[in-house]
């Protein structure tokens, strides 16, 4: 009996999740270890150095950079107002003096004696980090942020867009295999994390935006609809900063694909409870998948095959490429020897018993682990 390392998406109602809420630069942590936080609690704050504006004073005054020292009306480190005179040339016999003015309001940070360039720093930009998910502050990284520890339901999607949001879960379709239609999106879904079926076409996505749905969790979307929604063709799957008015979590993939029964069931069971949703996806090293987190009282954490990444005979897998794309099955064999495919490529394979009893042979690379018993 062999085994293999295979990635998978975590879907569990007894998961532990720790989220690191860290500032991009040092700042102030506003909560302490042991505090209970809600998704909207601001846990850390910092002031980003303001934007920089430059002006070449030597060129503006028509003098050598080395001579600027004597011509400065304002010294380095001083606050300046936009258009305030900051340097003046001596002119000719006191006439025809040239004056350089501050191009922005802020601080005169430096004046270079080599290049003649003055650097003005605008007012600092405040940055706040929220808790994102309800839980307990388990660790404080002094000056940077906190770790928020929580337990409950965790659903990882395969692809998403849009920023972190939170809201109560509402179920739009009881059937995970039915496409979600625009009429399924109701006014009362405003502010919710809406759970749909096998696919949401562009009109449904737009209905979600129009009705004020915060996040949509759906089995599949169409690549052309995504392009329409974003306004550009997504070349690489690095997302999370989109501002289309909706955070989207696609659980299965592109095309019409029934949402996994377990995903649909777990989220339906949490209807009305607050979910934290992130569309951020990064399919590169340091992979990030979109997620739905619903904190709840859990005593026993479930350790699953997806956590270990180890696939055995009897593991449940999802087929992630044609043929049989999207189908679930049970691993029946993991032979060590390479097998020659129709394409004539010799690869390591596995055999899978599909739900209808058919046994199929597939490249090992074409399945992912699923936390679900068939």
């Amino acid at each position, binding site marked *: 009996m062999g085994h293999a*390392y295979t*990635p998978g998406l975590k879907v569990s109602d007894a998961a532990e999740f720790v989220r690191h809420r860290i500032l*991009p*630069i040092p700042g102030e942590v506003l909560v302490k270890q042991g505090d209970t936080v809600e998704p909207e609690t601001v846990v850390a704050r910092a002031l980003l*150095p303001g*934007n*920089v*504006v*430059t002006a*070449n004073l030597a060129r503006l005054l028509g003098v050598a*950079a080395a001579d600027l020292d004597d011509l400065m009306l304002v010294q380095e480190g001083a606050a300046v107002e936009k258009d305030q005179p900051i340097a003046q040339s001596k002119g000719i016999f006191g006439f025809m003096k040239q004056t350089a003015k501050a191009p922005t309001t802020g601080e005169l*940070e*430096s004046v*270079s004696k*080599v*290049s*003649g*360039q003055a*650097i003005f*720093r605008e007012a600092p930009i405040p940055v706040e980090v929220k808790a994102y998910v309800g839980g307990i502050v388990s660790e404080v990284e002094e000056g*940077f942020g906190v770790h928020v520890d929580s337990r409950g339901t965790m659903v990882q999607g*395969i*692809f998403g867009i849009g920023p972190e949001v939170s809201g109560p879960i509402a179920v739009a379709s009881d059937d995970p295999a039915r496409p979600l239609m625009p009429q399924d999106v109701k006014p009362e879904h405003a502010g919710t994390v809406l759970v749909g079926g096998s696919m949401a076409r562009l009109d449904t996505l737009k209905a979600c935006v129009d009705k004020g749905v915060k996040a949509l969790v759906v089995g599949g979307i*169409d*690549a*052309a609809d*995504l392009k329409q929604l974003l306004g550009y*063709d*997504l*070349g*690489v*799957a690095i997302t999370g900063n989109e501002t289309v008015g909706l955070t989207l979590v696609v659980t299965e*993939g*592109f*095309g019409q694909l029934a949402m996994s029964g377990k995903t649909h069931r777990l989220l339906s069971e949490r209807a009305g409870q607050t979910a934290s949703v992130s569309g951020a*996806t990064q*399919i*590169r*090293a*340091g*992979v990030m998948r979109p997620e739905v987190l619903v904190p709840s009282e859990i005593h026993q954490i479930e350790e699953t095959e997806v*956590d*270990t*990444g180890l696939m055995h005979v009897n593991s449940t897998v999802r087929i*992630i*490429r*044609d*043929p049989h*794309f999207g189908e679930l099955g049970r691993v029946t064999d993991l032979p060590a020897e390479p097998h020659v*495919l*129709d*394409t*004539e*490529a010799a*690869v390591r394979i596995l055999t899978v018993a599909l739900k209808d009893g058919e046994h199929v042979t*597939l*490249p090992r*690379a*074409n399945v*992912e682990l699923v936390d679900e018993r068939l």
Partner: protein
Amino acid sequence: MTDKIRSILATDCGSTTTKAILIELTDEGYRLKVRGEAPTTVEKPFDDVTVGVVNAVTEVQELAGRPLVGEDGLIMTPQQGDAGVDLYLSTSSAGGGLQMLVAGVVRTMTAESAERAALGAGAIVMDTISSNDKRQPHEQIARIRHLRPDMILLSGGVDGGTTSHVAELAELIGAADPKPRLGSGYELPVVYAGNVQARDAVKEALEAKTALSIVDNLRPTLDEENLDPARDQIHDLFMEHVMAQAPGYDKLKSWTSAPVMPTPGAVGQIIQTIAKQRGISVIGVDIGGATTDVFSVFKDTFNRTVSANLGMSYSISNVMASAGLENVLRWVPFDIDESELRNRIKNKMVRPTTIPSLIRDLQVEQALAREALRLSLIQHKEFATELKGVRKSRDISEAFDQSGSGNTIVDMMALDLVVGSGGVLSHAPRRVQAALMLVDSFEPMGITALAVDSIFMMPQLGVLASEQPEAATEVFERDCLVMLGACVAPVGTTKGGKPLAEVTMDLPDGAKTVGLSRGDLLRVPLGQGETARVRVVPAKGVDVGAGPGQPFEKTVDGGEVGILLDGRGRPLQLPTTANERVAAIEQWIENLDLYPRRS
């Protein structure tokens, strides 16, 4: 000392897969014994690159039938009896590789030289800032702050040239106060390789805010590039700063017998070795999951470019977006629903490690590979140029020609050898598929040898070349490079359906003459280890290497494909209507025995 090295283990940690090879000293010299691979593990739940390394080495150990990993989970060095290896080496591009920002005074001169230095060191260049790049200083600062590179290379000014512009650039970088991409606990490395007289000004602007190091000017005079000191410094800093931040690299560094090298730097090393040893011009291409690297050596000048978002898995959707649907579909010999194709490509993007198990799926993937390769070469040609800004003495014909400095040095007619590497080429089920992908995308002219990296081991051999050149060369010649054969491609057209050229080949079983017509694509067997003298007599106005209408002769090596006679024109002309195009492709598939026949 070389004779004491009995066994070498080399790994390459790619963005998707970690590959391991075991080389052993045999009676025939150094030979590849076995290879193994496993998914790269720089992400959860593992977060440690060495897990993937041990998995790949475990596969090697099972296949080799001798222990390489000890009970403590470490690779055993040196070899003791039958256990372990004498040397363990590694390359890596996991964790996104080395991402750099470069800056120079003039976009087409020092900034471009800096870009070449960074690319040659194996970096992905995120942006190039220059004094004349048409961006306002505040826009440049915003860009530097936003990018969060692993390292910055600052150049500018020839020695004795401008200091104020260089100082200005350094001040911009200082004002941006950029943070490194990985880890907030260390200072961003900045390499200064510009005008020696601006060093003090650069120190003043950057020394307090960054980990500044200063090396020789990479463009000491207008007509001279001196890239090695900057490249070497980049390599050292990559090891010291960047690698140390990626998950598990500290551990990996402590395991290897020599510094871990960035994968593209290692491939560049081996491509340069081939060109030098054989005295030829070479193009090498490594098409990966996220990026496609093109390496070339023409007139003893090495160039490397990275097409950052042209790749076969992570970036496959960008290949489609960049090439356009029509360009992809022109290589596919069947109708396919556009929406289905787009969804299929996006699914590959989000599940990048899947592989085609159906022939049609393979054909679509190879169509995308052709476009990724084609676009990468276009980018490479635009970058691999003569030094710009050089004053040339011209003769009268050149003066009329108006050709100045900055022309591409990539001359497809002068090209001797194309080497393809990367999964889609190295693992193509039939070698002729790899050969045709290279020909369709690169469109070699005249007579050009074709080869692939048999099992995608150029990165490991590149790093080995820096430690054990003899072993690297032996394995490269015997086990890595697979000669596919040669492509004969006349350039030009004829009127009235006249043949483009008459090709006579002195084959081992006798001479054979073929009249090559427009649109023909033919395959003449010439096996591995065999050679043939090829004489081409082109029609009037058609060139095969000696000038229009001039006969040309060359001895070619055989290989797993043989000789491809390509009469499809340069630039390549495909039939314009869908039916004619599909019929032509089906004919070429049959002529070349490209895919298994569908039952």
